[in-house]
């Protein structure tokens, strides 16, 4: 299809979608309106189960089964990336050279690393109380580790980041979520139902029943998943090179 033709098809399709969207929006409830039936029910359910962060309650209690599906997408995407970015036969691994880092960068990166790591763990641990949770905190933890790459070099990062361990951690996080779900089933109610543990005192760390546990499982999975993902991409950028030498040797 020529570029001109493609633009015409795009304009027609885009216009039709725009008309449909505007027609649909005209019949949506008004922006900022006071009627949110699902929201109100979610808030009262969260309060009944002593979970201060209603969004965590929605994710890990009311919609815990959907979160399992989402976690599985995450797991599958990481698996796919790992498979796609393997080292192939015509590539070789080059040990990364030590790099020179400007002293201020090194200093601030190394100061920020423990702070960022602690912040991430805090965000995971307080997911049922304050904004945040396993998904957000997991990403903070994983990126905190990579400050070492900025502050020192790739070899230093590889020392604290044995990828195999994090791959196991990723699977363990996913498995922990499933095990907690099955525990709910064995405990006498339904899969992933939040009936296993006492709901605790409102607005304390141990409140919310199974929410903090599911939250921690997700935090572990996300942190490990992001580390593994970044490791695969960094390996491609830093370590893996096309093996020109042997390829030419074969031809001649």
């Amino acid at each position, binding site marked *: 299809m020529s570029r001109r033709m493609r633009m015409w098809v795009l304009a027609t399709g885009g216009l039709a*979608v725009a008309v449909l969207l505007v027609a649909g929006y005209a019949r949506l*409830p008004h922006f900022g309106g006071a009627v949110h039936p*699902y929201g109100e029910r979610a808030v009262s359910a969260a309060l009944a189960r002593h979970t201060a*962060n209603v*969004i965590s309650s*929605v994710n890990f209690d009311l919609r815990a089964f959907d979160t399992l599906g989402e976690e599985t997408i995450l797991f599958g995407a990481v698996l796919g990336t790992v498979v796609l970015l393997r080292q192939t036969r015509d590539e070789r691994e080059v040990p990364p050279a030590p790099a020179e880092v400007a002293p201020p960068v090194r200093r601030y990166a190394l100061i920020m690393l423990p702070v960022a790591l602690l912040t991430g763990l805090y965000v995971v641990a307080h997911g049922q*109380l304050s904004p945040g949770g396993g998904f*957000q905190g997991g990403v903070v933890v994983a990126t905190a580790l990579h400050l070492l790459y900025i502050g020192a070099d790739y070899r230093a990062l590889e020392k604290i980041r044995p990828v195999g361990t994090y791959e196991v951690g990723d699977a363990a996080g996913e498995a922990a979520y499933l095990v907690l779900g099955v525990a709910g089933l064995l405990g006498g109610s339904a899969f992933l139902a939040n009936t296993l543990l006492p709901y605790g005192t*409102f*607005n304390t760390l141990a409140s919310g029943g199974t929410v903090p546990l599911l939250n921690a499982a997700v935090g572990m999975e996300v942190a490990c998943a992001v580390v593994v993902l970044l490791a695969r991409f960094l390996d491609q950028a830093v370590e893996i090179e096309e093996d020109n030498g042997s390829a030419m040797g074969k031809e001649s």
Partner: protein
Amino acid sequence: MNTVPYLVAGWIFLVGCYGLATSRHLVHAVGCLTVCQSSTYVLLLAVGYRDGGTAPVFSDVTPGSRPLVDPVVQALALTDVVVGATVTALLLALVMQVAKRHGTVNPDELSELRG
């Protein structure tokens, strides 16, 4: 004025589609897909907004003292962000493989069959 946030969401989606269709670089195309996806965040949060509402988190708000925005759509947006980020990573991994195998990342030059 009431529908402006919804219209913004639709506009972001269509801009992303335009970028996808006219893209000359696969990394750019993946970026455009992310733009399309971010329109859903705007739409979800716009649907859940309530005038004068605050975050549905009770760590420092007494229950019942203030109106709250809808937590359900916020949870959906969170889901959306996570899935979007990992799927973007998967797509970028695919782009790297395409670049290695075909030596080009221009979608227009990728029409030939190989193998």
